[in-house]
Each structure stands twice: as C-alpha cells, then as structure tokens.
C-alpha cells in the first residue's frame, strides 16, 4: 500500500572504501541509493524496508562519461540517464545507448535515475540493458577483493537479481562501437513515461562492400527473466548476406528464444508476437533495408 517512507539511517560515504565497509557491516539491511527513482518507489509503493540507506553520490569519480582514445567508453555508475541523453559523444558514437537512455520515464526521472541504478535494479524491461548488452558492455564491480569486470550478459541472473556479491557497481565499460549500425525499439502504449511491453536492441556490422554481416547482436527486453541475448538469432545473420528472408529468419529465432510471462502490460502470447515484429523491424531498419532509420517508439 502506498505509504510515506519509514525511518531509516541515511549514510553518505565519501569514498568507495567507506561505502564497502558500510555494506559489509549492514549486509542486507543496507539499501544502496543512487538516483532513487526505483529504490524510493519500491519503498513507498511496495513496503520495501531499509534500516540503512547508503547514498553513493558523495563518492568522487562515480559519475562521468569518459571517451577513451581507443574509441571505447567508460561511464560511471552514477551517471544520470539525463547526462547520457545530453552527451553529444554518446549520441554520435553509441546511438543505441542514447536511444535506450532517452526513453526511460520522463525528463525528471532521467535527471535522477542513473545507469548503474537502472542495471542494478535488474528489471527485465530496463531500457539501458538491451543496448548495453548489444554493445558488449561490461560491468566494473568493486568488492572486497578489488575490482573485477563482468560482461553485462552475465550480470543479470533473474528479475531483480544480479551476479553481484557484496560489491558495488562502479561503472560500465563499452568497447569501441566501430561502424556498426544499430537500433533500439521500445513498444509501449505511451510515447513517454512508460515501461516496455517488449523492447529490442540490434547491432549489425555489415560490410558495405560485400553486404555480408559480421558480428550481430540482438538483445530482447521484457520477455525473459533477464534482458536476453538472442544468440540463435544472431547466428542466423553472422557471416551471411542480409536478405529479407534472412532477417525474417533471425526475427523468428529471436521469437523462439523469448520466454515471456503475461502481466498487466500484455499477455505472454502477445509479447512473443511482438518480439518477432520488433526484431524484424529493427533488423530491417538497422541493415538499411528500410526507408530511413528513424528512432521508433510506439
């Protein structure tokens, strides 16, 4: 039942070491606060209780977008989705991530919500997850034994669950995007302030000379316990010339990979149909077979 927040202890560590200590000390009693747009909602709406709230925002260096000389990208976990949306570098070089970040909630939500929070919340419908998976992103985790990197594909283990131990997600690392073309499609009843019924991120490396597809990434949102990489669909395309039939086959393969549930946003059967529609549409657009590659939402 929707309620006001209940009393908790608010802690604001100034360093990662301090934050880690607090997490070790309080264990599951501690809730990590980044942007607050998920955590505070769950506390108010679903009675999620916290004895201690550990706010990471006073830790220096956790927010920021860093373009590395090799073309890769490092994004601090506390970078807001709004900052990603406003980044001309991301828009130009990682449009897939830009599209995912820009369609979360509202301006107000994006000004608070962080990319780290969006991932750690581990919603299968998180809008930054399919793009980041498709881009081959890695989570940079900081724990007792120092820093480790984990492919985002392996980061999610179930709805609301991640492979993190008592660790802190400090950032995301994305390899150079190269010349691949990509598209994120989100299907939701409203054009803003909505959660995906189904979403899909695709990224294709197509040789402009031969028309042969190199690496292909197809990641589905909201149709499985985790953001789902549709490997069979990718394999349908890799090393192949991208004919209309090929794209359709890949979309079928994605549809077969989906394991949707039904909820108030849509039945499982509808979601499965939409995986096919959205994947095919995204592949057609991204491969240049469509008329113009506009960012689609609807």
């Amino acid at each position: 039942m929707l309620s006001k927040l209940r009393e908790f202890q608010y802690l604001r560590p100034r360093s990662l070491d301090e934050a880690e200590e607090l997490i070790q000390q309080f264990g599951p009693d501690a809730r990590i606060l980044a942007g607050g747009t998920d955590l505070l909602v769950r506390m108010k709406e679903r009675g999620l209780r916290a004895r201690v709230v550990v706010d990471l925002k006073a830790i220096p260096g956790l927010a920021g977008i860093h373009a590395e000389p090799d073309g890769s990208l490092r994004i601090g976990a506390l970078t807001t989705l709004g900052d990603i949306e406003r980044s001309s570098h991301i828009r130009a070089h990682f449009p897939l991530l830009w599209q995912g970040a820009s369609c979360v909630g509202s301006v107000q939500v994006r000004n608070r919500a962080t990319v780290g929070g969006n991932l750690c919340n581990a919603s299968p419908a998180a809008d930054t997850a399919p793009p980041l998976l498709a881009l081959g992103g890695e989570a940079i985790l900081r724990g007792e034994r120092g820093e480790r990197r984990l492919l985002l594909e392996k980061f999610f283990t179930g709805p609301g669950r991640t492979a993190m131990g008592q660790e802190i997600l400090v950032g995301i690392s994305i390899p150079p995007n190269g010349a691949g073309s990509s598209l994120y499609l989100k299907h939701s009843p409203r054009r803003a302030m909505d959660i995906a019924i189904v979403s899909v991120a695709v990224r294709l490396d197509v040789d402009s000379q031969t028309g042969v597809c190199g690496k292909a990434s197809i990641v589905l949102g909201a149709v499985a316990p985790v953001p789902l990489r549709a490997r069979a669909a990718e394999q349908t395309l890799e090393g192949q010339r991208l004919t209309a039939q090929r794209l359709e086959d890949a979309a079928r393969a994605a549809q077969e990979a989906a394991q949707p549930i039904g909820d108030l946003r849509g039945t499982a059967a509808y979601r499965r149909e939409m995986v096919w529609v959205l994947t095919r549409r995204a592949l057609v657009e991204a491969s240049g077979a469509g008329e113009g590659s506009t960012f689609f939402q609807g």
Partner: protein
Amino acid sequence: MADNQKAVGVSVPRIEAREKVLGRSVYVDDLRREGMIWGKVVRSPHPRARIVHVDVTEARGLPGVVAVLTAADVPGDRYVGPLVKDQPILCSSSVRFEGDAVALVAATAEEVAETARDAVRVEYEILEPVLDPIAAMSPEAPQVQAGGNVASYSKLRRGDVEVGFRAADVIVEDSFSTQMIDHAYLEPEGAVAEVDAEGKVTIWVCSQYPHYDRQEVARVLGVSLARVRVIQTTTGGGFGGKFGSPLVSCYAALLAARTGRPAKVLYTREESLRTTVKRHPYRIHYKVGATRSGKLTAVEARFVGDTGAYLVVGRAVVGKSTSHGAGPYEVPHVKMDGYAVYTNKAPAGAMRGYGVPQVAVAYESLLDELARKLNLDPIEFRLKNVLREGSQTATGQTLLHSVGVAETLERAADARREMTPHLKTGKPYLKRGIGVGVSWHGIGAARSPSQATAYVNLCGDGSATVLCGSVDIGQGSNTLFSQIAAEELGVPLDQISVVTGDTLTTPDCEATTATRVTYLSGNAVRLAAEKAKGTALELAAKHFGCLPEHLILARGKVQVPDAALEISLTDLFKKHAVQQISALGVFSPDCTPLDPETGQGSPHATYGFGTHVALVEVDQETGAVRLVDYAAFNDVGKAINPQAVEGQIEGAVAMGTGYALSEGMIFDRGKILNPSFATYLLLTAADLPPVRVGLVEAPEPTGPYGAKGVGEPSMNPVAAAVINAIYDAVGVRIRELPAVPETVFAALKTRQPLPADR
C-alpha cells in the same frame, strides 16, 4: 471593461490564474492547523467478505496515535449516498469491495497514522465476489445489496421498434463493452476539519458540492446543518469524482469531533484510484435500422451499467444513457432498456459524460457500419438524420431552438477534407484513417425541479459581489460569473468579487456537475445582477424624473444618454439612504420529468451538441494507435469565454482519447492491479497532437446570452471518433474499450480482407 467593451464573449484570463501560476492557491493539502492530526482509513483487501472481528488494540497503543474509530464510534447515521443511503462510512458487518472502509485512525504524524492503519487487525471471512454484472442480474447470484443486484431499471419506449425494423432496408446489430476508468484529477481527495469552542465543525474540502458534504457530515455526526460549515478549497479537478466528497469530509469531521483537534485526511493516489467513484463500465447491445435512402427507422438498445458496490448516482447515470441512447437524431421508433447493477467493485459514480460516452461509442460505431452498408458517407448519412429546430428527440421533446448539430457536422466535413492529404504514411505497416463521432448532452440533471440561486450586492462605487453556491473546480465558473456580473453592471471585471463554495455564506446551488453551471447558475447570476441594476435604475429614474428604460448603468454611474446627465451610484445611494443594493436571482430550467414507463418527457431545457473528427495512425503489426490530428466542433450556444470553452474541449479530447486508447482499471478477481499512474495510463503531452477547436454558436434563448455549456458535450463523442478512425484506417471494429495495442492486434488478426479500394 471600458464602456464600449463587453465582458461577455471575451477571452479574459481566469480571475485566479495569477495565484495559481505563483503557486499561492491553497488546496486542501496546503492547509495546516495548529495541533493538526492525520487520519488514515483502514480498508478491506477483499472484494467481498464478512467482518469477523476488528482488533484495534495494537494500533491504539502506538505512540502518537490519538484515535482509532470503527463503525460503533459513528455518532449519527452510518450510511451516505446522494440517491440512496447505502454506503457505510465505516463497515461493521461486511465489506463489498476491495477498499471498503473498516476503521479510521489518527495520529500526530502522517507516517504514524499509516503505521496505525496497518496495525489494525481485521479478521475476514472471505466470500466469493460478484464480479460480472450480467451474471449478477441472475436471481441466483449472491446479493451485493439486500435489495437485489439490479439497482435500477430505466426504460424508453417511442413508437414501435418492430414496425421500425420492418421498415428498415438495412439493420446492423452488435455488442460492445466499455471499461471502468478513473477521473484521475491531479489533486487527490482530502479534507481538513476543525471544531470550534462552540462545538461547531468547519470542514475544508476539495469538492464539487460542499452543501451536499454538509448534509452528510451533519447526518453522520448527528447534528443539525447549523452546526456544520463546509468550505471548498481550491479544487484540483473534479469531472464528477468530487460530486460531493462526503466520505473524506466525514472522516475528517469524525476525527475532529472525537479528538477536539483539527484533523486532515488526504487520500493517497493509490486510495484515489482504488477506492473512489469511477466511470461505469457498460455492456451494451444495439440494433439500428435505416432505409436505403439513409433514414433511421428504429433503434433498440440494452445497457447494463456496472455500478459497483454502492449506487451513488448509478440510477441517474443509466437513465441518462437511456434518454440519450438514440443520439441527436430523429428516430421514429426507439426502445431502450438500461440497468444499473451492483457488483463487488469500487462504486461507479458521476463522471463527465454521465452514461453518454459509453453508449455513444457503441451507437456511433454502428452508424458508421450502417453508412458503409448503405454506401453513404458517414457525415452525409448523419446529416440526413440529425435533429434540427422543430425535431423531436427520442423522449418526445420538441426542440425549438439552439440545435446546432447539423452545423457541427458541416464544419466537420470541412475539417475532414483538410485532413485527407495527411492520410499517407512513410511505412507500409502504418495506416491512417479518419473517424467521426457525434453526440449530445442534456444540460443539467434530468429531473424537475432543479434550480440555481445567486445574490448580487451592488456597492456605491459600482463594484459588486456575487454569491453563488456553484463552485469552481478548475473549469473557470468563477471567472464566468464575474464576466456576467461585469457585463450586466457595466464595470470592469476587477470590480466584481465572487464568493462561492462556503455553506455559511452562499446559497445551495446543487453540484457543479451535469454541465449545468453556465446555464443554470450563469442565469441566476445574470438575473441577480439584472435585478440589482434595475433597482439602481429605478432610484435614478426617480431622481431624473424619467423612465428607467432610458437610463444606463456604467462604471458606477447612472447616465441619461440623451441628456448627457449622470449621477454616481454613491450619490444616488446617499440620497436614498441605501448602503448597497442586494438582489436575488433564481433560475429554474423548463423541463418535465421522464415518464417511468415510457421514458417520455422533456428532461432538459436545452442540449449541447458536438461532432468530432479524429485522424489516427494504426501500427498494423503491433496494434498501437496514435492520434495524429483532431478537430472538435461543439455547439455551445454562446461562448461567454471562448478561451475557457476551448480549454474545456481540448481537455475533453485528451480524456476521451485516453478512454478510447489507454485508460482502464484492470482487475484480477475483483482486485485492482493498476492503482498508480505508472500502470493506469493517462495520455501525456507527447501522446497528443494539437487539437483544432471550432465553436458553433446556435444561441439558446433561455441561456445567459445564449449560452448552454460544454463540459460533457465535448467529452461524449471523442471515443466514438477515435474508434471509427481505427476502423477507417485498418478495417477492424473495436468493440471492447480501451483499444490498447494488444486489443487492436487481436482484432487485426481476425480481420476480413480489406475492401479493394483501400
């Protein structure tokens, strides 16, 4: 207004707009009183159950808790309701919907009150809920209310539909269902109550009808009306949902009376969505016949309105469907049967349109089907049948004046022509179509007598105060009253003060509802101002030794235009030892109640009409529908404030499009699954196109300056236009609202091949 400038017919900014843009208007949640306590309501988690035991011990023992009340603590009557007193303030023996109130707690802080609310232990014996309204009508169904589940039955009989259908060359027939929606005003319900040293209770509440709230509070407290004062706070939207706010008013009053401390009860958004009144979901069956030449011969319909656990105004809502079910058309043979049925769901009540949007979407869908079968253009077909001056409605009422529906259709045809070039899309899977919806709405409640009352006090400097019971809920009626008074009294707008919404000082004008304020209360204000002016002119006529008809009142002076003479009201009043002139205006519309057997009568003195045109884009692969363009034409009689009228229509288009496409309470075994704005989907600014509004003014001789009203007539045709546009785009008929992507997708899967010409 300057002497040559009028106040009526001018788009003046609303009088409280400055306060609102500065954030200074005081809404109920903005009130703070010294020592104020917070109340929370303990609600049933079950749609139907027997209350076995209520244990308040733990809640009462929490630090900061000052009161825990159950039904036994209610000093007066325990039941409220505008038509039938069937809704318990606090349930004692059984609960009838998920959210029914069982106990009331109060504490010194809102969080503590919530903790206490959650600490009240209620033992229930869970019973199988009655959820399907059709099944509920069976005599074997468990009874939601002691009197049976059929709460009301309203009929309309005109001519003989058998004869009418025999005369028809084409007959169409189909079933439709509409969903439960919420008013979803941005301000949730709330009230603050305080008891003074004399024991009198004052309640501040966001409400459409403070005088009704006073009646219920007085009954529940068991005191006379004189002991209760209700003051309406700035109200953040109503749309029928705050058609009286008796429950929340009573909760605050009970707590204040019990503790002697000021008490605030403010619903959360979840409570507002889960437990307050809703729009009636309908099951509808229509059969409509027409001749080959396109004349309607007969309409037969049956509606079942799901009124939920309590009647509220269900009987009247379904009655309005019955009287309006044949639309603004001449139909010789009409048969309507409407039922309001109890189920174990949140009570349905008044909501903008009041039973008309539901039937309009079904009926207008079938009129499009008829037009298609007759190979007639949908607008041309409707024009052959619409009411005109001298026409008889289905209730047998002859309309002599102000029937602008044909003009709205003609204007709609122009708009459709302008939209036609935009039917193309850049994608093969996106299809566009244009749909038309026509509707009407009787002004004021369908009964007799009904009246509005206003006082005008005219001061020596020409300024005046208007006192009227009709409250402004955001639609702008206080501005309208000041425009009318300024017009009559010949002063600028800022010389008029408007007092509304205080039961101590303003007359009971009935609720701000039923599109009645402009017509009824506007007339009352006009009559009062006219009378005050008349008295002043009579005094001046004596002074000048002329006839009052030769005088004019402007800017605080009475002038004899022919002789270039004038006297100030100040001097005039001094001369006659008058402090101010007070005048009373009373207006009752000319109507006759409907005959209960035939549904015949003249339930409304006048009607508002509208034709709306929607251009939608349907994604054939996903079922997603987007509104691309929209034109709305409403016959409002006269727009006293054109900008405010446009604003009403634009708001109705958004609300109606949400009704058509996205909104709806989603239930699982009687429990609402989507009690938040993240799951109950109101359309956002990004989902809507600019709306073109065209005002048609077929003057109503009995209206103030010819005005009728617009609140509901603008709502009624929207969903119909959108649903017809979906058909035009992709050839599927949506019979079940809302047309969410999955519903449209499912319909597309069963689609017949499209006609070759598309």
